[in-house]
Protein backbone atom coordinates (compact mmCIF):
# COMPACT_ATOMS: atom_id res chain seq x y z
CA UNK A 1 0.00 0.00 0.00
CA UNK A 2 1.23 3.47 -0.86
CA UNK A 3 0.51 5.65 2.16
CA UNK A 4 2.01 8.89 0.90
CA UNK A 5 3.44 10.10 -2.38
CA UNK A 6 5.44 13.22 -3.19
CA UNK A 7 6.14 14.11 -6.80
CA UNK A 8 8.27 16.99 -8.01
CA UNK A 9 8.86 18.24 -11.55
CA UNK A 10 7.11 15.46 -13.43
CA UNK A 11 4.95 16.22 -16.47
CA UNK A 12 2.04 18.47 -15.38
CA UNK A 13 3.07 18.26 -11.71
CA UNK A 14 5.30 21.03 -10.38
CA UNK A 15 5.18 19.70 -6.85
CA UNK A 16 2.56 17.74 -4.98
CA UNK A 17 2.37 15.66 -1.86
CA UNK A 18 -0.63 13.60 -0.84
CA UNK A 19 -1.61 10.68 1.32
CA UNK A 20 -3.78 7.80 0.18
CA UNK A 21 -6.66 5.74 1.53
CA UNK A 22 -7.62 2.18 0.66
CA UNK A 23 -9.84 3.51 -2.13
CA UNK A 24 -8.68 6.55 -4.12
CA UNK A 25 -10.76 7.95 -6.93
CA UNK A 26 -9.41 10.77 -9.06
CA UNK A 27 -11.98 13.17 -10.49
CA UNK A 28 -11.43 16.34 -12.50
CA UNK A 29 -11.64 17.83 -15.95
CA UNK A 30 -9.75 16.49 -18.95
CA UNK A 31 -6.10 17.47 -18.81
CA UNK A 32 -6.16 18.11 -15.04
CA UNK A 33 -3.55 15.45 -14.30
CA UNK A 34 -5.49 12.32 -13.28
CA UNK A 35 -3.68 10.00 -15.66
CA UNK A 36 -0.35 11.66 -14.82
CA UNK A 37 -0.70 10.55 -11.21
CA UNK A 38 -1.72 7.06 -12.28
CA UNK A 39 1.31 6.90 -14.59
CA UNK A 40 3.63 7.43 -11.62
CA UNK A 41 2.28 4.30 -9.94
CA UNK A 42 2.66 2.43 -13.22
CA UNK A 43 6.25 3.67 -13.51
CA UNK A 44 7.02 2.67 -9.90
CA UNK A 45 5.69 -0.83 -10.53
CA UNK A 46 7.78 -1.27 -13.65
CA UNK A 47 10.95 0.19 -12.15
CA UNK A 48 10.58 -2.01 -9.06
CA UNK A 49 10.47 -4.97 -11.43
CA UNK A 50 13.78 -3.95 -12.96
CA UNK A 51 12.70 -1.80 -15.90
CA UNK A 52 15.22 0.59 -17.44
CA UNK A 53 14.16 4.21 -16.85
CA UNK A 54 15.41 5.33 -20.22
CA UNK A 55 13.32 2.74 -22.03
CA UNK A 56 10.38 3.54 -19.78
CA UNK A 57 10.51 7.26 -20.53
CA UNK A 58 10.11 6.42 -24.19
CA UNK A 59 6.62 5.18 -23.32
CA UNK A 60 5.76 8.02 -20.95
CA UNK A 61 7.33 10.99 -22.69
CA UNK A 62 8.91 10.05 -26.01
CA UNK A 63 10.13 13.58 -26.68
CA UNK A 64 12.26 13.46 -23.52
CA UNK A 65 11.82 16.99 -22.20
CA UNK A 66 8.08 16.42 -21.69
CA UNK A 67 8.99 14.09 -18.82
CA UNK A 68 9.62 17.22 -16.75
CA UNK A 69 7.30 20.05 -15.78
CA UNK A 70 7.06 22.74 -18.44
CA UNK A 71 7.52 25.53 -15.88
CA UNK A 72 10.85 24.18 -14.71
CA UNK A 73 14.25 24.22 -16.33
CA UNK A 74 15.46 21.55 -13.92
CA UNK A 75 16.09 18.12 -15.36
CA UNK A 76 15.58 16.27 -12.10
CA UNK A 77 12.21 14.73 -11.25
CA UNK A 78 11.79 13.55 -7.67
CA UNK A 79 9.55 10.78 -6.38
CA UNK A 80 9.21 9.92 -2.69
CA UNK A 81 6.78 7.53 -1.13
CA UNK A 82 5.84 5.96 2.13
CA UNK A 83 5.05 2.36 1.39
CA UNK A 84 3.52 -0.25 3.65
CA UNK A 85 4.39 -3.88 2.95
CA UNK A 86 1.85 -6.72 3.30
CA UNK A 87 3.53 -7.55 6.62
CA UNK A 88 2.65 -3.94 7.66
CA UNK A 89 6.23 -2.65 7.84
CA UNK A 90 6.60 0.94 6.66
CA UNK A 91 9.42 2.35 4.53
CA UNK A 92 10.37 5.72 3.09
CA UNK A 93 11.63 5.28 -0.42
CA UNK A 94 12.75 7.98 -2.81
CA UNK A 95 14.61 8.46 -6.07
CA UNK A 96 15.18 11.07 -8.73
CA UNK A 97 15.20 10.76 -12.46
CA UNK A 98 17.87 12.92 -14.08
CA UNK A 99 18.64 13.75 -17.67
CA UNK A 100 22.22 13.61 -18.94
CA UNK A 101 23.74 17.01 -19.80
CA UNK A 102 26.83 18.24 -21.58
CA UNK A 103 28.99 17.91 -18.47
CA UNK A 104 28.17 14.29 -18.08
CA UNK A 105 29.79 11.40 -19.83
CA UNK A 106 26.90 10.05 -21.84
CA UNK A 107 28.87 7.01 -22.87
CA UNK A 108 29.52 6.13 -19.28
CA UNK A 109 25.98 6.65 -18.12
CA UNK A 110 24.20 5.41 -21.17
CA UNK A 111 21.69 7.50 -23.05
CA UNK A 112 19.78 10.37 -21.51
CA UNK A 113 17.69 9.40 -18.46
CA UNK A 114 19.17 7.78 -15.39
CA UNK A 115 18.45 7.29 -11.67
CA UNK A 116 20.09 9.38 -8.96
CA UNK A 117 19.64 10.10 -5.25
CA UNK A 118 17.96 6.82 -4.44
CA UNK A 119 17.36 5.89 -0.80
CA UNK A 120 15.40 3.50 1.37
CA UNK A 121 14.68 4.02 5.05
CA UNK A 122 12.67 1.85 7.39
CA UNK A 123 10.22 3.67 9.64
CA UNK A 124 10.64 2.29 13.14
CA UNK A 125 7.70 2.20 15.55
CA UNK A 126 7.28 4.37 18.64
CA UNK A 127 8.87 7.47 17.13
CA UNK A 128 12.32 5.89 16.95
CA UNK A 129 14.57 7.45 14.32
CA UNK A 130 14.10 5.88 10.90
CA UNK A 131 16.76 3.41 9.89
CA UNK A 132 18.70 3.80 6.67
CA UNK A 133 18.75 0.67 4.52
CA UNK A 134 20.70 2.14 1.62
CA UNK A 135 21.45 5.49 0.12
CA UNK A 136 22.81 6.56 -3.22
CA UNK A 137 23.70 10.23 -3.46
CA UNK A 138 23.60 12.16 -6.70
CA UNK A 139 24.95 10.03 -9.51
CA UNK A 140 27.67 8.58 -7.28
CA UNK A 141 28.88 5.18 -8.39
CA UNK A 142 28.80 3.79 -4.85
CA UNK A 143 26.10 3.35 -2.24
CA UNK A 144 25.99 3.49 1.54
CA UNK A 145 24.50 0.48 3.22
CA UNK A 146 23.41 0.10 6.78
CA UNK A 147 24.47 -3.10 8.54
CA UNK A 148 25.14 -4.35 12.05
CA UNK A 149 28.67 -2.98 11.73
CA UNK A 150 27.42 0.51 10.95
CA UNK A 151 27.30 2.25 7.60
CA UNK A 152 29.55 0.85 4.91
CA UNK A 153 30.17 2.03 1.39
CA UNK A 154 30.23 -0.35 -1.53
CA UNK A 155 30.53 0.05 -5.29
CA UNK A 156 27.32 0.43 -7.21
CA UNK A 157 27.20 -2.52 -9.51
CA UNK A 158 23.92 -1.77 -11.21
CA UNK A 159 23.15 0.01 -14.44
CA UNK A 160 22.53 3.69 -13.53
CA UNK A 161 19.29 3.47 -15.48
CA UNK A 162 17.92 0.80 -13.12
CA UNK A 163 16.81 1.14 -9.50
CA UNK A 164 19.08 -0.27 -6.81
CA UNK A 165 15.75 -1.28 -5.26
CA UNK A 166 15.11 -3.74 -8.06
CA UNK A 167 18.50 -5.37 -7.96
CA UNK A 168 19.92 -5.37 -4.45
CA UNK A 169 19.54 -8.68 -2.58
CA UNK A 170 18.88 -7.48 0.93
CA UNK A 171 15.71 -8.48 2.81
CA UNK A 172 14.21 -4.99 3.34
CA UNK A 173 15.03 -4.01 -0.22
CA UNK A 174 13.52 -7.17 -1.65
CA UNK A 175 10.39 -6.71 0.46
CA UNK A 176 9.79 -3.16 -0.80
CA UNK A 177 10.61 -4.13 -4.39
CA UNK A 178 8.18 -7.05 -4.21
CA UNK A 179 5.49 -4.83 -2.71
CA UNK A 180 5.76 -2.18 -5.42
CA UNK A 181 6.39 -4.75 -8.14
CA UNK A 182 3.18 -6.66 -7.34
CA UNK A 183 0.94 -3.74 -8.28
CA UNK A 184 -1.48 -4.14 -11.17
CA UNK A 185 -2.14 -1.29 -13.54
CA UNK A 186 -5.07 -1.94 -15.86
CA UNK A 187 -5.83 0.20 -18.85
CA UNK A 188 -9.45 -0.84 -19.08
CA UNK A 189 -10.06 0.71 -22.47
CA UNK A 190 -7.69 -1.68 -24.19
CA UNK A 191 -8.21 -5.11 -22.68
CA UNK A 192 -7.91 -7.05 -25.92
CA UNK A 193 -5.51 -7.30 -28.83
CA UNK A 194 -6.92 -7.76 -32.29
CA UNK A 195 -6.39 -11.48 -32.81
CA UNK A 196 -9.72 -13.28 -32.61
CA UNK A 197 -8.95 -16.63 -31.15
CA UNK A 198 -6.45 -17.04 -28.38
CA UNK A 199 -4.69 -20.09 -27.07
CA UNK A 200 -3.55 -19.27 -23.56
CA UNK A 201 -0.35 -20.83 -22.34
CA UNK A 202 -0.17 -21.59 -18.64
CA UNK A 203 3.47 -20.42 -18.73
CA UNK A 204 2.74 -16.82 -19.59
CA UNK A 205 -0.95 -15.98 -19.88
CA UNK A 206 -1.45 -12.58 -21.47
CA UNK A 207 -3.00 -10.53 -18.69
CA UNK A 208 -4.15 -7.85 -21.11
CA UNK A 209 -6.82 -10.17 -22.50
CA UNK A 210 -9.95 -11.51 -20.86
CA UNK A 211 -9.00 -15.05 -21.82
CA UNK A 212 -5.49 -14.66 -20.44
CA UNK A 213 -6.58 -13.28 -17.09
CA UNK A 214 -9.37 -15.91 -16.83
CA UNK A 215 -6.89 -18.77 -17.32
CA UNK A 216 -4.36 -17.14 -15.00
CA UNK A 217 -6.90 -16.89 -12.17
CA UNK A 218 -8.38 -20.33 -12.89
CA UNK A 219 -4.95 -21.94 -12.54
CA UNK A 220 -3.87 -19.81 -9.61
CA UNK A 221 -6.87 -20.31 -7.32
CA UNK A 222 -10.10 -22.07 -8.30
CA UNK A 223 -11.86 -20.66 -5.22
CA UNK A 224 -11.02 -17.08 -6.21
CA UNK A 225 -12.06 -17.85 -9.78
CA UNK A 226 -15.46 -19.00 -8.53
CA UNK A 227 -15.77 -15.87 -6.37
CA UNK A 228 -15.00 -13.74 -9.42
CA UNK A 229 -17.69 -15.56 -11.38
CA UNK A 230 -20.23 -14.90 -8.61
CA UNK A 231 -19.25 -11.23 -8.53
CA UNK A 232 -19.65 -10.92 -12.31
CA UNK A 233 -22.99 -12.72 -12.19
CA UNK A 234 -24.29 -10.22 -9.66
CA UNK A 235 -23.42 -7.38 -12.05
CA UNK A 236 -24.38 -9.05 -15.36
CA UNK A 237 -27.72 -10.82 -14.98
CA UNK A 238 -27.70 -14.21 -16.69
CA UNK A 239 -23.90 -14.40 -16.93
CA UNK A 240 -22.59 -17.95 -17.22
CA UNK A 241 -19.00 -18.81 -16.26
CA UNK A 242 -16.80 -19.72 -19.24
CA UNK A 243 -15.59 -23.19 -20.08
CA UNK A 244 -11.82 -23.40 -19.84
CA UNK A 245 -10.51 -26.34 -21.81
CA UNK A 246 -7.05 -27.86 -21.69
CA UNK A 247 -6.12 -28.52 -25.32
CA UNK A 248 -2.60 -29.75 -24.67
CA UNK A 249 -3.48 -33.34 -25.37
CA UNK A 250 -4.90 -32.58 -28.77
CA UNK A 251 -1.86 -30.43 -29.68
CA UNK A 252 0.50 -33.18 -28.51
CA UNK A 253 -1.31 -35.76 -30.57
CA UNK A 254 -1.11 -33.70 -33.74
CA UNK A 255 2.46 -32.45 -33.37
CA UNK A 256 5.45 -34.40 -34.59
CA UNK A 257 7.82 -32.03 -32.83
CA UNK A 258 9.13 -33.17 -29.45
CA UNK A 259 9.48 -29.57 -28.33
CA UNK A 260 5.79 -28.96 -28.93
CA UNK A 261 4.89 -31.90 -26.79
CA UNK A 262 7.02 -30.52 -23.95
CA UNK A 263 5.36 -27.11 -24.09
CA UNK A 264 3.30 -25.81 -21.22
CA UNK A 265 -0.32 -26.66 -20.97
CA UNK A 266 -2.51 -24.67 -23.33
CA UNK A 267 -6.07 -23.57 -22.82
CA UNK A 268 -8.94 -22.13 -24.79
CA UNK A 269 -11.73 -20.17 -23.15
CA UNK A 270 -15.30 -20.48 -24.34
CA UNK A 271 -17.75 -17.82 -23.15
CA UNK A 272 -21.49 -17.62 -23.40
CA UNK A 273 -23.81 -14.70 -23.80
CA UNK A 274 -27.55 -14.51 -23.26
CA UNK A 275 -28.05 -13.36 -26.86
CA UNK A 276 -26.48 -16.57 -28.14
CA UNK A 277 -27.68 -20.10 -27.70
CA UNK A 278 -26.36 -21.71 -24.55
CA UNK A 279 -25.66 -24.90 -26.47
CA UNK A 280 -22.38 -23.61 -27.92
CA UNK A 281 -19.67 -21.27 -26.72
CA UNK A 282 -18.46 -18.01 -28.21
CA UNK A 283 -15.07 -16.33 -28.30
CA UNK A 284 -14.46 -13.24 -26.22
CA UNK A 285 -14.77 -11.17 -29.39
CA UNK A 286 -18.53 -11.83 -29.41
CA UNK A 287 -19.06 -10.55 -25.87
CA UNK A 288 -20.56 -7.08 -25.72
CA UNK A 289 -18.17 -4.22 -24.96
CA UNK A 290 -19.82 -3.44 -21.63
CA UNK A 291 -19.81 -7.08 -20.54
CA UNK A 292 -16.16 -7.46 -21.57
CA UNK A 293 -15.16 -4.53 -19.39
CA UNK A 294 -16.99 -5.82 -16.32
CA UNK A 295 -15.57 -9.32 -16.76
CA UNK A 296 -12.04 -8.08 -17.37
CA UNK A 297 -12.10 -5.67 -14.43
CA UNK A 298 -13.44 -8.19 -11.91
CA UNK A 299 -11.15 -10.99 -13.10
CA UNK A 300 -8.14 -8.67 -12.96
CA UNK A 301 -9.02 -7.53 -9.44
CA UNK A 302 -9.26 -11.11 -8.20
CA UNK A 303 -6.09 -12.01 -10.12
CA UNK A 304 -4.13 -9.24 -8.34
CA UNK A 305 -1.96 -10.17 -5.42
CA UNK A 306 -3.63 -9.78 -2.02
CA UNK A 307 -2.37 -6.66 -0.19
CA UNK A 308 -1.23 -5.12 -3.46
CA UNK A 309 -2.41 -2.06 -5.33
CA UNK A 310 -4.78 -1.99 -8.29
CA UNK A 311 -5.01 0.91 -10.69
CA UNK A 312 -7.59 1.32 -13.46
CA UNK A 313 -8.60 4.16 -15.75
CA UNK A 314 -12.22 5.27 -16.21
CA UNK A 315 -13.84 2.01 -15.17
CA UNK A 316 -17.32 3.15 -16.16
CA UNK A 317 -16.60 3.63 -19.88
CA UNK A 318 -19.18 1.83 -22.01
CA UNK A 319 -21.12 0.71 -18.99
CA UNK A 320 -24.87 1.07 -18.51
CA UNK A 321 -25.83 3.32 -15.60
CA UNK A 322 -27.69 0.52 -13.85
CA UNK A 323 -24.46 -1.45 -13.56
CA UNK A 324 -22.26 1.22 -12.06
CA UNK A 325 -23.55 0.95 -8.48
CA UNK A 326 -23.30 -2.85 -8.64
CA UNK A 327 -19.76 -2.66 -10.00
CA UNK A 328 -18.62 -0.27 -7.27
CA UNK A 329 -20.33 -2.46 -4.68
CA UNK A 330 -18.41 -5.53 -5.86
CA UNK A 331 -15.11 -3.66 -6.19
CA UNK A 332 -15.46 -2.28 -2.67
CA UNK A 333 -16.02 -5.79 -1.32
CA UNK A 334 -13.08 -7.29 -3.22
CA UNK A 335 -10.55 -4.65 -2.21
CA UNK A 336 -11.75 -4.75 1.40
CA UNK A 337 -11.54 -8.50 1.74
CA UNK A 338 -8.27 -8.88 -0.16
CA UNK A 339 -6.66 -5.76 1.36
CA UNK A 340 -6.00 -4.29 -2.06
CA UNK A 341 -5.45 -0.56 -2.43
CA UNK A 342 -7.54 0.77 -5.29
CA UNK A 343 -6.95 3.77 -7.56
CA UNK A 344 -9.16 4.73 -10.45
CA UNK A 345 -10.11 7.79 -12.44
CA UNK A 346 -13.66 8.72 -13.36
CA UNK A 347 -15.72 11.38 -15.06
CA UNK A 348 -18.99 9.90 -13.88
CA UNK A 349 -20.76 11.73 -11.08
CA UNK A 350 -23.03 8.75 -10.38
CA UNK A 351 -20.02 6.86 -9.04
CA UNK A 352 -19.60 9.56 -6.43
CA UNK A 353 -22.88 8.49 -4.80
CA UNK A 354 -21.11 5.39 -3.57
CA UNK A 355 -17.84 6.97 -2.45
CA UNK A 356 -16.85 8.63 0.78
CA UNK A 357 -15.47 12.19 0.46
CA UNK A 358 -12.15 11.02 1.89
CA UNK A 359 -11.90 8.51 -0.96
CA UNK A 360 -12.19 11.14 -3.70
CA UNK A 361 -9.23 13.24 -4.89
CA UNK A 362 -10.20 16.36 -6.77
CA UNK A 363 -7.70 17.16 -9.50
CA UNK A 364 -7.33 20.50 -11.21
CA UNK A 365 -4.80 22.30 -13.31
CA UNK A 366 -3.73 25.46 -11.47
CA UNK A 367 -1.11 28.10 -12.16
CA UNK A 368 1.51 25.76 -10.71
CA UNK A 369 0.46 22.65 -12.57
CA UNK A 370 -1.71 19.75 -11.44
CA UNK A 371 -3.08 20.03 -7.93
CA UNK A 372 -4.56 17.11 -6.01
CA UNK A 373 -6.83 17.66 -3.03
CA UNK A 374 -8.87 15.14 -1.14
CA UNK A 375 -12.51 16.32 -1.02
CA UNK A 376 -12.47 16.50 2.77
CA UNK A 377 -9.51 18.87 2.58
CA UNK A 378 -10.95 21.34 0.09
CA UNK A 379 -12.06 24.78 1.26
CA UNK A 380 -15.40 24.10 -0.46
CA UNK A 381 -15.99 21.04 1.73
CA UNK A 382 -15.94 23.23 4.84
CA UNK A 383 -18.22 25.78 3.16
CA UNK A 384 -20.81 23.19 2.13
CA UNK A 385 -20.58 21.52 5.54
CA UNK A 386 -21.40 24.88 7.08
CA UNK A 387 -24.37 25.33 4.70
CA UNK A 388 -25.79 21.86 5.29
CA UNK A 389 -25.04 21.76 8.99
CA UNK A 390 -23.50 18.32 8.53
CA UNK A 391 -20.77 16.57 6.58
CA UNK A 392 -21.58 16.65 2.85
CA UNK A 393 -21.44 13.53 0.72
CA UNK A 394 -19.10 13.33 -2.27
CA UNK A 395 -21.92 13.86 -4.74
CA UNK A 396 -23.37 16.79 -2.79
CA UNK A 397 -20.02 18.54 -2.84
CA UNK A 398 -19.12 17.82 -6.47
CA UNK A 399 -22.62 18.45 -7.80
CA UNK A 400 -22.64 21.84 -6.07
CA UNK A 401 -20.28 22.93 -8.84
CA UNK A 402 -18.23 24.95 -6.37
CA UNK A 403 -15.06 22.93 -6.93
CA UNK A 404 -15.01 23.74 -10.61
CA UNK A 405 -15.53 27.50 -10.22
Amino acid at each position, binding site marked *: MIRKLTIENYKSIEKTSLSFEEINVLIGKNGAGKTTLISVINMLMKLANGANINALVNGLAPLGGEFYNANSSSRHAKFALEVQTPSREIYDYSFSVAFGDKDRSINELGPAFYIENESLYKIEPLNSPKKMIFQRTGDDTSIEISSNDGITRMPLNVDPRVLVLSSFAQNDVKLVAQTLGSYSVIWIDTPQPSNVFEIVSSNAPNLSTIDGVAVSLYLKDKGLFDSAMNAIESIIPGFTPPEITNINDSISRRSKDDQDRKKATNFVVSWSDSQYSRSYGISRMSLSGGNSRVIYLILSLYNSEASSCFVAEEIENGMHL*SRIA*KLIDQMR*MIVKNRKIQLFFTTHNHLILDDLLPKEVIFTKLGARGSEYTRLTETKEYADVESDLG*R*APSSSELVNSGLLFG
Partner: protein
Amino acid sequence: MRYLKVGIAYEGGDDGQLIATIVRKVTEPLGFTFEFFEPETPSTAILDYISSYTNKFVDSGVDMGIYCTDQDEATDSRRLLIKTKIERTDAAFALKAAIGVPVPHIEAWLIQQDSIVKNLLGIDGSIPLPHSELSPKDRLTALYSESDYYTRTRNDLRIDIAGRLDIDFCSRNNTEFKHFVQDIRSIISRL
Protein backbone atom coordinates in the same frame (compact mmCIF):
# COMPACT_ATOMS: atom_id res chain seq x y z
CA MET B 1 -49.44 -16.92 2.21
CA ARG B 2 -51.15 -14.92 -0.54
CA TYR B 3 -49.17 -13.50 -3.44
CA LEU B 4 -49.29 -9.86 -4.46
CA LYS B 5 -47.94 -8.22 -7.57
CA VAL B 6 -45.92 -5.26 -6.34
CA GLY B 7 -44.38 -2.56 -8.53
CA ILE B 8 -41.39 -0.68 -7.17
CA ALA B 9 -40.19 2.65 -8.50
CA TYR B 10 -36.96 3.82 -6.92
CA GLU B 11 -33.93 5.92 -7.59
CA GLY B 12 -31.91 3.30 -9.38
CA GLY B 13 -28.65 1.82 -8.29
CA ASP B 14 -29.02 -1.06 -5.90
CA ASP B 15 -32.06 -0.01 -3.90
CA GLY B 16 -34.64 -2.35 -5.48
CA GLN B 17 -33.90 -5.50 -3.47
CA LEU B 18 -33.44 -3.45 -0.31
CA ILE B 19 -36.87 -1.81 -0.62
CA ALA B 20 -38.44 -5.17 -1.48
CA THR B 21 -36.95 -6.63 1.73
CA ILE B 22 -38.47 -3.86 3.85
CA VAL B 23 -41.86 -4.20 2.14
CA ARG B 24 -41.80 -7.97 2.69
CA LYS B 25 -41.06 -7.39 6.40
CA VAL B 26 -44.34 -5.46 6.56
CA THR B 27 -46.54 -7.67 4.36
CA GLU B 28 -45.51 -11.16 5.43
CA PRO B 29 -46.76 -10.93 9.04
CA LEU B 30 -50.09 -9.98 7.44
CA GLY B 31 -50.08 -13.12 5.31
CA PHE B 32 -48.94 -11.58 2.02
CA THR B 33 -45.76 -12.01 0.07
CA PHE B 34 -45.02 -10.89 -3.48
CA GLU B 35 -43.18 -11.16 -6.70
CA PHE B 36 -42.08 -7.71 -7.58
CA PHE B 37 -42.44 -5.95 -10.84
CA GLU B 38 -39.63 -3.47 -11.34
CA PRO B 39 -39.79 -0.97 -14.18
CA GLU B 40 -36.59 0.30 -15.77
CA THR B 41 -35.41 3.00 -13.40
CA PRO B 42 -33.81 6.19 -14.62
CA SER B 43 -30.95 6.09 -12.09
CA THR B 44 -32.00 9.50 -10.93
CA ALA B 45 -34.74 10.99 -8.79
CA ILE B 46 -38.10 9.50 -9.83
CA LEU B 47 -40.04 12.70 -9.23
CA ASP B 48 -40.28 13.64 -12.89
CA TYR B 49 -41.57 10.19 -13.86
CA ILE B 50 -44.33 9.57 -11.32
CA SER B 51 -47.07 9.72 -13.94
CA SER B 52 -45.22 7.28 -16.23
CA TYR B 53 -44.60 4.83 -13.40
CA THR B 54 -48.22 5.03 -12.31
CA ASN B 55 -49.46 4.27 -15.83
CA LYS B 56 -47.02 1.39 -16.09
CA PHE B 57 -48.17 -0.02 -12.74
CA VAL B 58 -51.83 0.28 -13.74
CA ASP B 59 -51.20 -1.35 -17.14
CA SER B 60 -49.29 -4.19 -15.46
CA GLY B 61 -52.10 -4.86 -12.99
CA VAL B 62 -50.03 -4.47 -9.84
CA ASP B 63 -51.78 -4.82 -6.49
CA MET B 64 -49.51 -2.29 -4.84
CA GLY B 65 -47.24 0.44 -6.22
CA ILE B 66 -44.19 1.44 -4.15
CA TYR B 67 -42.65 4.84 -4.80
CA CYS B 68 -39.37 5.49 -3.02
CA THR B 69 -37.15 8.53 -3.35
CA ASP B 70 -34.77 10.31 -1.03
CA GLN B 71 -35.84 13.60 0.48
CA ASP B 72 -32.20 14.75 0.25
CA GLU B 73 -31.98 18.41 1.21
CA ALA B 74 -35.23 19.42 -0.51
CA THR B 75 -37.46 21.56 1.69
CA ASP B 76 -40.75 20.82 -0.07
CA SER B 77 -42.46 17.57 0.92
CA ARG B 78 -41.64 15.01 -1.73
CA ARG B 79 -44.24 12.68 -0.22
CA LEU B 80 -46.96 15.25 -0.90
CA LEU B 81 -45.61 15.94 -4.37
CA ILE B 82 -45.63 12.25 -5.31
CA LYS B 83 -49.10 11.73 -3.84
CA THR B 84 -50.49 14.67 -5.83
CA LYS B 85 -48.95 13.41 -9.08
CA ILE B 86 -50.36 9.90 -8.57
CA GLU B 87 -53.82 11.26 -7.83
CA ARG B 88 -53.68 13.44 -10.94
CA THR B 89 -52.68 10.48 -13.08
CA ASP B 90 -55.07 7.86 -11.70
CA ALA B 91 -57.09 8.71 -8.60
CA ALA B 92 -58.13 5.09 -8.05
CA PHE B 93 -54.56 3.85 -8.07
CA ALA B 94 -53.64 6.36 -5.36
CA LEU B 95 -55.30 3.93 -2.93
CA LYS B 96 -52.80 1.26 -3.99
CA ALA B 97 -49.74 3.51 -3.65
CA ALA B 98 -47.24 3.37 -0.79
CA ILE B 99 -44.82 6.27 -0.65
CA GLY B 100 -41.45 6.13 1.08
CA VAL B 101 -39.36 9.27 1.36
CA PRO B 102 -36.45 8.64 3.72
CA VAL B 103 -34.72 11.73 5.09
CA PRO B 104 -32.11 12.31 3.79
CA HIS B 105 -31.78 8.82 2.26
CA ILE B 106 -32.68 5.19 2.82
CA GLU B 107 -29.67 4.39 5.01
CA ALA B 108 -31.33 6.60 7.66
CA TRP B 109 -33.90 3.82 8.03
CA LEU B 110 -31.19 1.17 8.32
CA ILE B 111 -29.08 2.62 11.11
CA GLN B 112 -31.93 3.20 13.53
CA GLN B 113 -31.17 0.02 15.42
CA ASP B 114 -27.48 0.27 16.32
CA SER B 115 -27.42 -3.25 17.65
CA ILE B 116 -28.24 -4.79 14.25
CA VAL B 117 -25.43 -2.86 12.54
CA LYS B 118 -22.95 -3.65 15.30
CA ASN B 119 -23.90 -7.31 15.30
CA LEU B 120 -23.52 -7.72 11.53
CA LEU B 121 -20.26 -5.77 11.33
CA GLY B 122 -18.69 -7.26 14.45
CA ILE B 123 -18.54 -3.91 16.28
CA ASP B 124 -18.22 -3.93 20.06
CA GLY B 125 -21.75 -3.58 21.42
CA SER B 126 -20.63 -1.49 24.38
CA ILE B 127 -19.32 1.46 22.34
CA PRO B 128 -21.40 4.05 20.50
CA LEU B 129 -21.76 3.38 16.78
CA PRO B 130 -18.80 5.28 15.21
CA HIS B 131 -18.84 8.01 12.56
CA SER B 132 -21.87 9.89 13.86
CA GLU B 133 -20.50 12.98 12.07
CA LEU B 134 -21.26 11.46 8.66
CA SER B 135 -24.53 11.26 6.76
CA PRO B 136 -26.30 7.89 7.26
CA LYS B 137 -25.22 6.65 3.83
CA ASP B 138 -21.56 7.59 4.27
CA ARG B 139 -21.66 6.34 7.84
CA LEU B 140 -22.76 2.90 6.76
CA THR B 141 -20.14 2.87 3.97
CA ALA B 142 -17.38 3.88 6.41
CA LEU B 143 -18.45 1.25 8.96
CA TYR B 144 -18.61 -1.39 6.24
CA SER B 145 -15.18 -0.46 4.88
CA GLU B 146 -13.60 -0.75 8.30
CA SER B 147 -15.13 -4.13 9.12
CA ASP B 148 -13.03 -7.24 8.63
CA TYR B 149 -15.90 -9.26 10.04
CA TYR B 150 -18.48 -8.77 7.30
CA THR B 151 -17.17 -10.16 4.01
CA ARG B 152 -20.12 -9.77 1.61
CA THR B 153 -20.93 -6.61 -0.36
CA ARG B 154 -22.16 -3.33 1.09
CA ASN B 155 -25.49 -3.86 -0.63
CA ASP B 156 -25.75 -7.33 0.92
CA LEU B 157 -25.16 -5.63 4.26
CA ARG B 158 -28.00 -3.18 3.62
CA ILE B 159 -30.36 -6.05 2.73
CA ASP B 160 -29.22 -8.05 5.75
CA ILE B 161 -29.93 -5.08 8.02
CA ALA B 162 -33.33 -4.51 6.41
CA GLY B 163 -34.21 -8.17 6.97
CA ARG B 164 -33.59 -7.79 10.70
CA LEU B 165 -35.33 -4.46 11.32
CA ASP B 166 -38.01 -4.31 13.97
CA ILE B 167 -40.70 -2.60 11.91
CA ASP B 168 -42.68 -1.31 14.89
CA PHE B 169 -39.59 0.02 16.66
CA CYS B 170 -38.47 1.83 13.51
CA SER B 171 -41.98 3.22 12.94
CA ARG B 172 -41.98 4.73 16.41
CA ASN B 173 -38.58 6.36 15.83
CA ASN B 174 -38.86 7.63 12.28
CA THR B 175 -41.87 9.55 11.01
CA GLU B 176 -41.28 8.89 7.31
CA PHE B 177 -40.75 5.20 7.92
CA LYS B 178 -44.01 5.16 9.88
CA HIS B 179 -45.89 6.78 6.97
CA PHE B 180 -44.45 4.24 4.55
CA VAL B 181 -45.42 1.30 6.74
CA GLN B 182 -48.89 2.76 7.33
CA ASP B 183 -49.40 3.11 3.57
CA ILE B 184 -48.52 -0.56 3.00
CA ARG B 185 -50.69 -1.79 5.87
CA SER B 186 -53.63 0.29 4.63
CA ILE B 187 -53.38 -1.20 1.15
CA ILE B 188 -53.20 -4.72 2.59
CA SER B 189 -56.24 -4.06 4.79
CA ARG B 190 -58.28 -3.16 1.72
CA LEU B 191 -57.42 -6.34 -0.18
